[in-house]
């Protein structure tokens, strides 16, 4: 299992993460990322890592627990 760490101050609301994995990320009305589930199953890991890397300001990380 891995966990998602979001830097809410860095987030600029570009929404690339939502387009890449809308079951994991959303953006609130203020334009800040909402992490819908903080743990990542191994089978989802590649997809969530790729969503994290689509962030233009590197506000998302997937870390080993």
């Amino acid at each position, binding site marked *: 299992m891995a966990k998602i760490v979001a830097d809410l101050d860095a987030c*600029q*609301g*570009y*929404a*690339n993460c*939502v*387009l890449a994995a*809308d079951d994991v990320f*959303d*953006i*609130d*009305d*203020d*334009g*800040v990322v909402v992490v819908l589930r903080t743990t990542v199953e191994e089978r989802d*890991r*590649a997809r969530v*890592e*790729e969503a994290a*890397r*689509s962030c*233009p300001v*590197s506000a998302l990380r997937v870390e080993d627990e």
Partner: protein
Amino acid sequence: MSRTVIVGASVGGVRTAQALRSEGYDGEIVLLERETELPYNKPPLSKALLKGTSDADSIRLLTREAAEELDLELVLGAEVTALDPALRQIQLADDTRIAYDNVVVATGADARPSPWGRCPGVHVVRTLADARRLRADLDNGGTIVVVGSGFIGAEVAATARDLGLEVHLVDPLPTPMSRGFEESVGRIFLGLHQDHGVQPHFGTGVEGIDGERGSFTVRLSDGTALSAGAVVVGIGADPNTTWLASSGLAVEDGLVCDQYLRAEGAPGVYAVGDVCRWRDATTDELIRVEHWTNAVDQALCVARTIVAPDSPRPYHAIDYVWSDQYDWKIQVVGHHEGAVADTLLGDVASGCFAVLYAGPGGSLLGAAVANWPKALITTRKAMAAGSTYDDVLAKLEPAAPRPVRDMEGA
């Protein structure tokens, strides 16, 4: 063991390498970069990095440690001079040849140089070194002239105003960012720059630049002469393909690729990012896009195809680009060049609005959004889901910010 060579370590190249590992590629990955800098992210070069609110370390795409962790061979200062698809080799400036099973062309685009002479103090903004040189000149204060009001020019103008310089913004077209916005929308952004003290010179070109760093005179075609300590030329970029000239590959404003981003007639050759001109699966037209998100999406597409070459999926992405100017976030969804907006929602005066473009058959062609997060996420999701224009309008209309009414005389 299979070897994938990636030529170019800007965002397209780096993300391809990372995605290859995420997708389970266990071959050798060689990442070649002609610059000697560790890979870095380019969008901040005209914004936060230029302004000084972020530094080079904070915009790195890859560190030595991260490269090691991913088992990437990262070679900096590597000038690739040729690609031989028959021998499946690339050649470096020092005549070294590297054999590949797959090669990913990610050499990006170079800023179009100033046609009015290239001397110190006349800047382009494409690399970290460019941004550092410009920043040094901005530190001298005074006046700058920015030629070209595309995203780069408009962002540099905003940054320079934020730093307190006098700024002249020159463009032969009538409004800023006119590749992205028709004139009526462009006028809103012209107003933004004027409100921040930029002196606009639109509808006029540059005849010549005289003088030297610290004391340039920029002569405009309307007869105006502008004095400036430095000049920034932001007139576009050209794909970096000269090294492919002897390859026999189809090069025409980029490396020509099929809908899977594979170079035609050359097994194992792919392209991503600004240098990639691919045949769009939907329209059958060749297109090239110079946006960050496109490079990242293409990197993933190519990585997946390299890992599973027998089941490639056509590249399909919805264009998205952002620009930060002053305290405004300007975001463009979809490709609506040449189209005229159908609806403006929200409040221009307070800088929170969206313009929507209708496509054929009631579809949503795209949107331009300023400082309204809900409109951005709604339109991006709608484009991805193929929702209709009317659906999007129905969702956004009730949520649209209303102008603040002047109550006087009510």
